[in-house]
Every structure is written in structure tokens, then in C-alpha cells.
């Protein structure tokens, strides 16, 4: 039976097309008297991802990243809007979508810990209908690629966090998917392992795969993604390449102030200061760091010194805005 690929608008030839996706959850609370409330996790999300692209979806916690991914991977039914993945409708052609995509949902989950790696992969290979003559070879390739082959017959519960993460990633690739969704793939990982994971993701794209990942690490999105969509409160507020997004904050320089004795009071004063576009503060115990976005650049230094006259200033730097600054501006204003 010929499979029909449903085309949305002019979206032919795109790996992912999302059109006005929305998701409302009905939540019942309370033990005795159940009251129903509605939570709008995603309001209106539209975007497209091309084949072979590494696309990033960034935003604060609760913005709707995970919900969006779950809608695109058929795990949630949208309450509004439509989407196609690899040309198949996520609501009407669920099985076709599931067969062709890989899903990696961050963390060490998704594995049967009392069983070894080979059996875990074999199980999912069977669920995905990976051809039997290919299955065992691919399991070996994946485990070798992930550096797990010498521990392949050990129970997963004996694995370290990083190993579990890599096995989880291998599991997401077991059906050799064209398109892989990753939800916060490096969260909670040690820096070296996170770096290795990012390299792996880059290698996947180099092989021609398409990847959509969510993250709240801006430098990760900056480093990896061809294009980035910033999502906030269930809506996309910006979508561009990383350099495109940085241009958004080109009008401002970032003045980074490192000092001691800076409190919320001073931060609030900065926020009220004219020409300060945004302030982000890292108020540690031994040191505090402020990043002030302003078009005034170095001219703001005198005001900085005035506001911080009761604190100690160690260092003031003028920096180029990063993707993180663009993100902060878009997300906090």
C-alpha cells in the first residue's frame, strides 16, 4: 500500500513542520473535592526543520520544550495545530513516525537496569522491528561506537551515570533513525562526558542525520546548532541562526562586573538605571558577577562605580554579547 506523505502548505521536503501547535493539560487537584484547572503548556509553536539540520529549541524550565518534543514524537496529542515529521502527520500516521525517529529523553532512564546492555538494545530493536539479520551487528556497532562493548554483558545497574547516558543514546539510535529528538541530552553530566556527547551529536549530523535538541545551555546551542528557536511561555519568541540572534543584542555591549558585597539591592538599582537593557546577576558567597547589557558601553562605568560605592569592585570587562545574552534579553524582558 503506497504511503501518503501529507504535505502542509509549502512544507514539502522538510524534516519537521510544526504549525501552530498547542497543548492544554486538564489537571484535577485535591483529594476530596476535585477541582479542574487548565495548564497551557504550549500556546502556539510553529517552525520548520530541514533535512540534515541540527536544530535547537531553547528556553527556561516550563517554557514548553519537552511538551513540544513530545507532540512531535507522537507521545502527546496536540490540542491545537498540526505537525508532520519526515512527511508523516504526527496524529494520523503515528506508526510511520515512530518507526523512523529516534528519541533520547535525557537522564539515565529508559533502561532496564537488571538486565545487560545487549539485552536492552535487543529488546528495543525487536520493538522497532529492526531486521533480524541486521540487529546483532548494529547492536555491536552502536555499543562499540559508544565505548560500551567491553561492558556489554554487564547489568546496566553496574554502569556509571555517563555509561547509562551513552547506552540511552545508543537505544535512541537502534532503529537507525533519519531524525533524532533529544531532550536536554547533556543535563546532569560531568563536563568531559557532556563534551563527548556533544561531539557524538555533531558526528550524527555529519553522517547526514537530522537532529532536534532542546537545551538550556546556551553555549551548547551556540556551538552545535545551525538554527535556534527560543521558546518562552509556550511560544516561540525568536528563531534564527546563533549569529542572527546575537545581532539582536548587537545594539548593546555587555559590561561584566566582578565584585564583592553586591546584593539584590544594587542589582535592583541597576535595573532602574536608564539605558540598562537587562541585568543578570550571579550572587555567590565569595564573589558576585553582574552582566549588564547597555548601549552605552564603557560610558556606564561611572554609574556602575556610583551604585557600587559601598562594595568592592575587582574587575570590569566589556564583552561581546553572546547567545546567552540574546537569550536573556528575549526571555526576561
Amino acid at each position, binding site marked *: 500500500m503506497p504511503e501518503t506523505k501529507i504535505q502542509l502548505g509549502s512544507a514539502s521536503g522538510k524534516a519537521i513542520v510544526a504549525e501552530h501547535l498547542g497543548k492544554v*493539560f486538564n489537571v484535577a487537584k485535591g483529594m476530596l473535592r476535585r477541582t479542574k484547572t487548565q495548564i497551557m503548556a504550549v500556546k502556539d509553536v510553529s517552525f520548520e526543520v530541514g533535512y540534515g539540520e541540527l536544530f535547537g529549541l531553547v528556553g527556561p524550565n516550563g517554557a514548553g520544550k519537552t511538551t513540544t518534543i513530545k507532540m512531535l514524537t507522537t507521545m502527546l496529542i496536540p490540542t491545537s495545530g498540526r505537525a508532520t515529521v519526515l512527511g508523516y502527520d504526527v496524529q494520523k500516521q503515528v506508526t510511520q513516525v515512530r518507526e523512523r525517529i529516534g528519541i533520547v529523553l535525557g537522564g*539515565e*532512564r*529508559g*533502561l532496564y*537496569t*537488571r538486565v545487560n546492555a545487549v539485552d536492552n538494545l535487543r529488546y528495543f530493536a*525487536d520493538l522497532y522491528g529492526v531486521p533480524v539479520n541486521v540487529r546483532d551487528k548494529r547492536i555491536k556497532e552502536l555499543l562499540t561506537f559508544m565505548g560500551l562493548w567491553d561492558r556489554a554483558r554487564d*547489568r546496566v545497574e553496574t554502569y556509571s551515570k555517563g555509561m547509562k547516558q551513552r547506552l540511552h543514546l545508543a537505544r535512541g539510535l537502534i532503529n537507525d533513525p533519519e531524525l533524532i529528538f533529544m531532550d536536554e541530552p547533556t543535563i546532569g553530566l560531568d563536563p568531559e562526558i557532556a563534551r563527548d556527547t556533544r561531539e557524538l551529536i555533531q558526528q550524527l549530523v555529519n553522517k547526514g542525520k537530522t537532529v532536534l535538541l532542546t537545551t538550556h545551555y546556551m553555549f551548547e546551542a551556540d556551538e552545535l546548532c545551525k538554527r535556534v528557536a527560543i521558546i518562552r511561555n509556550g511560544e516561540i519568541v525568536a528563531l534564527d541562526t546563533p549569529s542572527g540572534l546575537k545581532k539582536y543584542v548587537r545594539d548593546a555591549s555587555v559590561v561584566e562586573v566582578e565584585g564583592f558585597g553586591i546584593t539584590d539591592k544594587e542589582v535592583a538599582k541597576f535595573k532602574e538605571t536608564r539605558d540598562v537593557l537587562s541585568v543578570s546577576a550571579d550572587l555567590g558567597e565569595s564573589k558576585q558577577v553582574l552582566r549588564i547589557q547597555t548601549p552605552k558601553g564603557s560610558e556606564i562605568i561611572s554609574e556602575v562605580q556610583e551604585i557600587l560605592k559601598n562594595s568592592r569592585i575587582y574587575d570590569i570587562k566589556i564583552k561581546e554579547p553572546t547567545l546567552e545574552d540574546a537569550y536573556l534579553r528575549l526571555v526576561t524582558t
Partner: protein
Amino acid sequence: MPQVLRVIYSAFRMAMLHWIADPQWVIPNIIAPFIFTAVALTLFQGSTGPFGLYAVLGGGMMGMWGNTLYSSGYAIEFEKWQGTLEEVIAAPSKLMHVIAGRSVSNALFGLVNMFAVLAIAALGFKIQLGIANPLLFTVSLVLTLLSVSALGLIFASAFVLSRSALTLTNGLEIPLYIISGSMFPVALLPFWIHPAAYILGPTWGIDAIRLATSQEYASQSFWNGMNWNTAILLDLTIMSLITLGYAALATVLFKMVETRARTQGTLVEA
């Protein structure tokens, strides 16, 4: 192998691997059947009649019930606790087929009780047991296993759809042992309970199994007076039809489970 069978087999294999990793977890599920059977064995000391038959076969039957009720009933919850439920739902295979594999293995492990009871019966109580018709016995056993597994699927989905259904499992265990005629003929029960017995597929199955084991049982079977082989075939046919009914109901329930998971985001009870 067709994909559906492959999925079922794979889930079955995974359940086996888990059992090998932790064989002791079957014990709590079959401790009640085991003790109940031991009581029956002690009770029939010095009596005549095919009671040993009832005890051993009934013990196996109750073991299947107990393990299915608790293991299959919690099959989907198990995936949740493992953190694998989302990944399993996300796969193109049907959740019902995955749980079916598990359910079959659960029913199978319930037979462990039968062997435990058999060992005790033979060693401790010096009961002799032979099987009159091994072929029909095996066929009956397999079909009964499938019927119990199908019920396991209903439990698995119902217990996720409704918290009250889950709470009721505690109350369901012993009534199932009674109504299914595992340890004594259904005829002994008040007449108004009989319909409940008849809609349970395995009730017919245990009848067939007992018939296939010993001629002595014939007079207590549902088909008293009928030709032995015909009786067994009748039992198996009725049970198979009921099993198909269970499968149909389970299909509907699993669709509800998946729809709810994809609407609510988690398998949250109503």
C-alpha cells in the same frame, strides 16, 4: 516471524530475563496458592477420591491466577517505576503486544507453584500422579495459560485506568480461586455464583486439564456422562471463545490507556 509475534516473544524474553535476575519475586505472588494447596493436601489425608488431582492441578491453577493478578496487573506500573514506560509507548509496537508477552510469562511462572506442590505432594504426602492423555493435557494447559494471560491484559489496563480497580485486586484474589473451581467443583458453589464461574475462561480450562489427567475425574466434570474426548474439546472450544472475548476487551482498554497517556502526559488516573 511476523512483527506482532516478534514483539510478544521479545517482551516474554525480557520478562524471563528479569525473572532469572530476581527469581524470588514470584514467591509473594504464589505464597497464598501454595499454602492454600498445602492445607487442602493435609485435609485430604485418609480420604479416597481424586483429591490429589485437585490439589496439584488446582495449585498450579491458583499459582497462575495469583501471579497474573499481581504481576500482570502491575505490568504497566512496573514500566513506570523502571522509567521505561515512555520509551516503550514511543516505539512503533503496540503496548498491548508488549504487555501480552509479559502476561504470558507471568502465567507461566505461576506454574512454578504447581511444581512446588507436586514435589510436596509426591514426597510428603506420597501421592501418585499420572497423566492419562499427555497430548490433550499439554494442549489444555497451553490454552488455559493463554486464557489467563488474556485476563492479565485486562487487569494490566484496567488497573492503570482506574485506581479503584487497583484497590480491588486485594479482594479479587481469593474469589478467583473459589469461582474458577480450582480446588473443588463449581457444582459445590451456590447456583447463583455459577454464571460468574462460566464466564471465566480458565474454569473450562481446569476442567479440561483434569479430564486429560484422569478418568476418575469424569463424573465431576461439567460434561458428566459425555464421551471423554468430546468433553475436553467442548471445554477447550468454550474457553477459546471466551479468550477471544478477553482479547477484544483488552484491545479496547489498551487503546484507552494509550489515548489517556497521550492526552494527559502521564498515566494519571481519572
